[in-house]
């Protein structure tokens, strides 16, 4: 019984960990630096496909037999490097553009990648690739575990991996933003021209941020591909990227803790809605002649998502956290000033 629940919630926990890691790297690009990228799902996809091809396609083509744990481990740095390389290729020409133009150029990259995958024989076209379960095989064959134990340990391993990755990215970003480089990055977001007049090399920092963000997204992609054990082009469609942009905006541009909170909220809305019993129907539409049209809340997550976004923009346009972070000092201050309205506004 416990393990059944664990299987269900554990998987959500794992996926939300991957989402958090992806949202954090996008927050560096869109939030901290103010580069409006709509192509983050593309870098995520590059990482996922790199990892998948390394364990699914390469051993087969080379006649190596089943992929071992070495290839599995190698797939992470390789996914990161490949995605970072794509970040560099896209970044160098595109980062000379500002605002809307950059958004369109990065959107173009994401779509080109997806359409390329649909048409590429090696990448499995629209059927995608299925990825062998290297971790399970390692637990069963090398460590000689029981079937159930291996299954549970596999999930625990991936939960630790996805949240470990999120933690790693979180710490790296926090340290980056607290350094002199972080100051320069914030200055670019606030006012590019003023930053350049103070000696900040715009192109260097923008490319650096973009490559770093893309590489991190590639890592998230590798975890995703290995856990789900399949990759298809539709997982990396534009709408996926848009959801992550919404998460970053909702969390507060540049706030890493805000991003984590927003990711968890956005991820769990459809999950919680899926629990609504079938007897619950809500009126959504009035059709003349037929009266009210009822739907189950399960089908309404996109409506709720949009309402949430509209509400956010009206009530708290700076995002959940603004550009601040949740810190221990901040929480103490909140607790002390809780009865009154005090504190910094």
């Amino acid at each position, binding site marked *: 019984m416990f393990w059944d629940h664990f299987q269900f919630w554990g998987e959500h926990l794992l996926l939300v960990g991957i989402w958090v890691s992806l949202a954090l790297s996008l927050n560096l690009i869109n939030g901290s630096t103010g580069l409006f990228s709509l192509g983050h799902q593309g870098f995520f996809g590059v990482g996922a496909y790199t990892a998948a091809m390394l364990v699914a396609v390469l051993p087969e083509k080379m006649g190596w037999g089943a992929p071992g744990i070495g290839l599995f481990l190698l797939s992470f740095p390789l996914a990161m490097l490949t995605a970072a390389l794509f970040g560099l290729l896209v970044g160098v020409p595109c980062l000379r553009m500002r605002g809307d133009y950059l958004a369109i150029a990065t959107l173009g990259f994401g779509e080109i990648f997806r359409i390329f995958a649909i048409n590429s024989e090696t990448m499995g076209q629209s059927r995608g690739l299925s990825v062998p379960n290297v971790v399970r095989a390692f637990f069963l064959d090398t460590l000689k575990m029981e079937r159930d134990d291996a299954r549970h340990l596999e999930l625990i391993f991936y939960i630790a991996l996805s949240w470990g990755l999120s933690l790693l990215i979180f710490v790296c970003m926090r340290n980056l933003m607290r350094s*002199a480089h972080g*100051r*320069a990055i*914030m*200055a670019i977001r*606030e*006012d590019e*021209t*003023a*930053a*350049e*007049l*103070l*000696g*900040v*090399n*715009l192109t260097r920092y923008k490319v650096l941020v973009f490559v770093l963000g893309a590489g991190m997204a590639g890592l998230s992609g590798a975890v995703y591909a290995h856990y789900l054990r399949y990759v298809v082009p539709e997982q990396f469609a534009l709408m996926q990227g848009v959801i992550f942009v919404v998460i970053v905006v909702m969390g507060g541009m540049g706030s890493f803790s805000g991003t984590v909170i927003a990711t968890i909220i956005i991820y769990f809305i459809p999950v919680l809605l899926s629990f609504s019993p079938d007897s619950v129907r809500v009126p959504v539409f009035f059709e003349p002649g037929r009266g009210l049209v009822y739907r189950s809340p399960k089908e309404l997550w996109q409506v709720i998502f949009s309402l949430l976004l509209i509400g956010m923009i009206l009530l708290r346009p700076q995002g959940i956290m603004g*550009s601040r972070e949740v810190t221990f000092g901040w929480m103490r201050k909140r607790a002390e000033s809780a009865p009154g309205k005090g504190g910094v506004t």
Partner: protein
Amino acid sequence: MSAAPILAAEQLDVFYGGIQALRGVSLDVREGELVTLIGANGAGKSTTLKTIAGILAPKSGKVRFNGAEIQGRSSHLILRDGLALCPEGRRIFPNLTVDENLDLGAYVRHDAQGVKDDVARWHATFPILKERARQLAGTLSGGEQQMLAIARALMSRPKVLMLDEPSLGLAPKLVDQIFAVLKELKGRGVTILLVEQNARQALEVADRGYVLETGRIVKHGPASDLSGDPAVRKAYLGG
């Protein structure tokens, strides 16, 4: 006045698309001088500073700074050479604190102690910045923001400071304050190239002046001569 100028623009031609904004503009600034560039709206004053600072590229002409030709270099490199521009409209970072703004001014420096000393020095010069050190810069008044912008530009320890319309949009009392600050900086030996619409006060503090009209330098000379010149008086000093 025998020393070679530290900053010199020679025959600058600058275009915005097909429209020529500067026509053969030449000027020079010697070490320790306060030189002002005056003229009406749209005469090309800001364009001249932007071109010198590397934001705009001249179609022809040269900019010499400290013995090297710098036209066409990127702004961030020009700042590293020691030529700072305090841009029009202040352009402070509103969501960073006053001290973070100052720290960013010293972005190109790596002497932590020297930076600390300079922050203390500009805090002493502009007490209001010390008072508001941890406040977001966007919450400062216009005049305070201008003080911050000037202090921020000085944080890189430039050899020459260029100021673009520091009195723009300020109440008369604050304008007086800004000019008092410029006078003080000059007293400390800071070399300044000042662009102003407020010609009267600019000529009062300056050593020399240039008058710019529709992209051309039409007059230049010691500031006192210019403020005595009937044509200049009529056009820029209200008779």
